[in-house]
């Protein structure tokens, strides 16, 4: 093919590569700048923004960690782990009921659960605050666990359901011959077969919870219940003059999800593309 490229083709290729590389620099440079600023002193930060830090000390990272980031991170990890478990299991049960069990009003139930996909969380905000205040769960870990589970069930069920539908019927028949009840069939046979899509949904749920801001901001205040996205804005308002500490906190918050993306890229891409148009 290269031989068929004329002179114009070569020029076009060169422009394309220049553009793609330039775009990669535009994406990566701000992130690099963020991580580097975590190593600078305040004086350096107000100097040349493109200079490298003179001294590579983790002091700002340690300061950020001790001034709340360790608490925010702990809360984020806790909310992420628990809500991932509740969301994925409740959704997998629902997907099983919708695809392998002949339940009454199946179509209606399906529409009711998946219809939740269309609703914007902002719309429910005011009533939810009143509801959680009445339940005494406002400003608690439980508020986030419940909201992250309830609002992600439609999407997660949608993905798992689409996968379960394609599993062959013979699987269930074989389970019945073995005398396994529905409960055993779900845990021992169907759920293990769904491992690829479960992995995708787990990763997408982690990305969502780790980064969620609207509910976290409205439903929590004060260290101990704040997750990283809200905690970072607190760090900013409390230590707004010590910018390098804020940059260090931002880098600490970003690192886990960037790593997760590189480790689980294949699963995340599959989940995202199935989620939008299957």
């Amino acid at each position, binding site marked *: 093919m290269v031989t068929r490229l004329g002179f114009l083709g070569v020029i076009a290729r060169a422009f394309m590569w220049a553009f*793609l590389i330039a775009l990669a620099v535009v994406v990566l440079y701000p992130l690099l700048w963020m991580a580097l600023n975590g190593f600078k002193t305040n004086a350096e930060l107000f100097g040349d923004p493109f200079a490298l830090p003179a001294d590579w000390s983790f002091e700002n990272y340690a300061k950020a960690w001790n001034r709340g980031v360790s608490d925010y991170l702990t809360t984020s990890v806790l909310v992420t782990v628990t809500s991932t478990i509740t969301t994925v299991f409740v959704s997998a049960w629902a997907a099983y*009921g919708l695809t392998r069990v002949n339940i009454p009003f199946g179509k209606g139930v399906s529409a009711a659960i998946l219809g939740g996909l*269309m609703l914007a969380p902002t*719309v429910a*905000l*005011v*009533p939810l605050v009143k509801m959680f205040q009445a339940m005494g769960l406002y400003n608690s870990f439980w508020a986030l666990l419940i909201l992250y589970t309830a609002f992600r069930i439609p999407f997660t069920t949608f993905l798992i359901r689409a996968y379960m539908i394609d599993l062959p019927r013979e699987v269930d028949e074989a389970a019945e011959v073995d005398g396994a009840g529905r409960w055993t069939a779900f845990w021992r046979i169907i759920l293990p077969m769904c491992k690829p899509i479960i992995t995708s949904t787990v990763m997408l749920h982690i990305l969502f919870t780790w980064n969620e801001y609207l509910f976290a901001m409205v439903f929590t205040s004060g260290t101990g219940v704040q997750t990283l996205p809200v905690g970072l804005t607190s760090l900013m308002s409390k230590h707004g003059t010590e910018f390098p500490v804020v940059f260090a906190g931002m880098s600490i918050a970003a690192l886990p999800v960037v790593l997760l*993306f590189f480790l689980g890229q294949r699963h995340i891409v599959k989940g995202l593309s199935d989620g939008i148009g299957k």
Partner: protein
Amino acid sequence: MRRALGLAWVVPALALVGVFVYLPLVQNFGFSTLKWDIYSGGQEFVGLGNYLRLPRDPVFWTSLVNNVLYAAVSIVFQVFGALVLAALIESIRSDRWRRSLRAIYFIPSAISLTVAGLLFYFIYEPSIGPLNHALRAVGLGGLAEAWLGQESTAMGAIIAMSQWQGFGYSTLLFAVAIQRIPSEIYGAALIDGTGPVRRFFSVTVPLVREMTGLMTMVTISGGFQVFNEVMVMTSGGPDNSTQVLGTWLYRSGFVRNDFGYAAAIATVIFVITMAIAVGQLWVARRRRVEW
């Protein structure tokens, strides 16, 4: 009876979605007819009063215009731009380069909008931000601005950040859609001697049109649900010039203690996003692309 037992599988999901997603939605309509002070607990029925206040509220119109602008710019960069970019990436023969570029462009979408928003708050910052430094360094110092501090540039600056954050996500999805086009079709086009530009318009664009339709709907819907980046970068300022419906709802209710009015704004967001969702269903149901 045995059939009814099967419902046990779906009850947890139905209950959670019913109580925490649907019920608040219904309650919101009720709240939007009240004049409601959440601290004193005082409630007074005002009928459609809150809705009648909307058209007379200049900040409501600013918010709506900002949401539309947000959605429009995002369509240009995150739908059309992303489609072209995905086609360019997929035309590279080295699998390693294709994968690396897709992954690099996606990184900003993996980190939170809070981190991205704070990061660009600093990038736009007049004294330490690299943007103004860079402009001065190349002799364009006259273009240096207090990007987030003045009404004329603040909204544009926020929208620009959001394009940086989101284009890799849609590029990745378009790349997947392009990979699903059978290679024989491209092979046939190559034998016909069709050039790359014509190949893009006569093969790629028509065969990924379903994804284009879905991405357009998702992008518009996202444009009307903006909240995080505006809160982090400007909180709606200066002088309410960067308010969007989500932040104006928040400010009306949680800051100005006018929860009935906030609920009325929520209804507007509901109507708009619902209309888009119905459009999305319609796009998805249309005859699938066949080859």
